[in-house]
């Protein structure tokens, strides 16, 4: 059976989650590999959420927030913009491929953009193959 990546999406409520909903109301199809959870602001994304996801068997993590300047909480996404690259640097040093963690800005009107990003990310991770993290940690995610 071909490898189907499991991708966790962490989306801010006001822009990106609304954008993902718009993809739905517009019936714009994208691969079912992404599973989304919602935070009020991308600034709530604690780096440990990403680590937790990778340890729990995610092959990739997509974090989405409002475009710079559009944050519902005025500047939360600027914090995300600084935190996620730092986290990615640490993860890269630990051998996690760059494409596995991705930060994107998606507005409430960008349903198509959300679908395009999910499609692109699914393809990239499919090319990378399964994440070795949970296996190397000897954690079977299905066993919790």
């Amino acid at each position, binding site marked *: 059976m071909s490898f*189907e990546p*499991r991708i*966790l999406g962490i989306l801010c*409520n*006001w*822009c990106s*989650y*609304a954008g*993902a*909903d718009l*993809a*739905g*109301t517009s*019936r*714009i*199809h*994208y*691969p*079912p590999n992404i*599973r*989304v*959870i*919602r*935070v*009020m*602001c991308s*600034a*709530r*994304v*604690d*780096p*440990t*959420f990403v680590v*937790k*996801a990778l340890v*729990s*068997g*995610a092959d990739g993590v997509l974090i989405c927030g409002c475009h710079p*300047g*559009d944050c*519902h*909480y*005025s*500047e*939360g996404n600027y*914090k995300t913009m600084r*935190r996620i690259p730092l986290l990615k640097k640490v993860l890269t040093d630990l051998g996690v491929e760059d494409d596995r963690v991705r930060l994107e800005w998606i*507005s*409430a*009107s*960008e349903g198509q953009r959300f*679908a395009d990003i999910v499609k692109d990310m699914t393809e990239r991770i499919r090319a990378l193959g399964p994440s070795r993290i949970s296996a190397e940690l000897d954690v079977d*995610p*299905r066993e*919790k």
Partner: protein
Amino acid sequence: MESRECKIGVYICNCGTNIAKVVDCEAVREYISELPQVAIARTYKYMCSNPGQELIIQDIKEQGLDRVVVAACSPRMHERTFRAALQTAGLNPYMFEMANIREQCSWVHDDPQAATEKAKALTQAAVLRVAYHEALEQMMVDMCPNTLVIGAGIAGLTAALELADAGQKVYLLDKQDHLGGNLARVDLTAPYLDSARDLLTERITRVKTSDNIELLLNSRLQELKGYVGNFSATLVSVDSDDPEENKAQKIEVGNVIVCTGYKEFPAERVTHFGYGKLPNVITSFDFEKMLRAGRIECKDGEIPNYVAIIHCVGSRSPEYHGYCSRVCCMTALKYVHEIKSAIPSCYVSDLYIDMHAFGKGHEDFYRRTSEVKTMFLMFGKGDHPIIRSAGPKDDCQMLIEVNEQLSGEVIEIPADLVILMVGMEAREDATETARLVNISQDKDGWFIESHPKLDPVATTTDGIYIAGTCVAPKDIPDTVAQARAAAGRILAKIAKGKIAVDAIYAEINEDACSGCRICNELCPYSAIEFDDEKKRSHVLSVMCKACGACVAACPSGAIKGRHFTDQQMFAQIEGVLR
């Protein structure tokens, strides 16, 4: 993670066939009922319907459920509905979680097997998350009865009067030096040919003489702080950029209505009609000016024998705006009547793509217009009539070539005056306005409603309402209806006196706080205070808007984001990936 002792009811919605045609809801139910915390799992046709909600209420009462999960549409759609159902059943509304298996599953995937697996994962995540939910109490805060209305066009005037007539204080703000907005530029209105001036004059007089309305012309909003019921707005004059001489005025309001209107599509963007080059090609707004001045004439002062009206300039076009501007078709018919009554001998041609006569009385108006001998010519979408200057032998200024759709022939018609029906577009300052009041815009720049059908004048920011053509192109009756609806919503809130604010905010565990003060600077609302004596930070919960920036930043893990706790998020992450 250990299983929590709880009794969760899970309800999987078919949404008619919206979900059920792709997701095997029964398979989701079977899977989810295996989870130890799940006491009961059901599928139902429409969970949001009264019988659907009743099902939840009854199970809570009879089975003693302590938490509920509904797998259905987006929580942005019905989270409030189901929270209210929990409350009716006597359960704390926060003991609830939704799994979005419609917008983010059945509507975007076509493989039933993959979609069903995803729906299982999303529902499971909601079950694991809700197990960690805590009962939260909402805070009641005072509702300031004053309202700020931004924009004094027909929407703003209407909303302001509605509130003022009910005895409430209104601040009516406009960047211009006069009242009336875009409607003040219009002569007659379709389809009853009432004068726009008449519609406005009565309102403007009442607004100017009302004791409850404070007019703030030549002014703009500079800053809006606070939250529903308790906003503080800073207003400045538009004339001066010098902060010294431009003294800002601060006002306290409980709600804001944004009625900033539209601007007309700039006809010069469409080069093929020669606007700006051919002297007698004018826009609908140029023509309104002529009508208001009382004389229809060509550039040289001659009375036109032939007038051509071209529809959909800048609208319904992939190059400019994809949407229909809604008012132009009827406005064009109105011009036919106005031209015919001013110059009975004038030949009027109306060049349209489709005649959109959707409103009350519009189809009759269309029929009456065709009875006054108007030449209607239909051109194709994606095509456009070609205008050229006439030769010396012709008895007209211009000739227009139309690839006429109904006859299938290329027809050439004379014109002395061409009126371009320019559509509506979002104002240039719409982005700035959206940011100031914290609302969103769609891809065309229009403000986004809380829900386009069910909650059309509210926005995603509590206490901020939108009405009229800043939301999308619309005619006067729809604009007035929205303005009154927004005012009505606000009056209902003012009548209650107090308002419940969301129980979701950050909390600092003072025992765990190291007093490092990292969070103090992070908070965009200055909601975190440092206690110099205790050397600990604490959150002013009323000020907190629950973004969670401080929660993620606290190096001691001392800050808890209520309803978005680490435990809840971890459980959800595990559930979605399992």
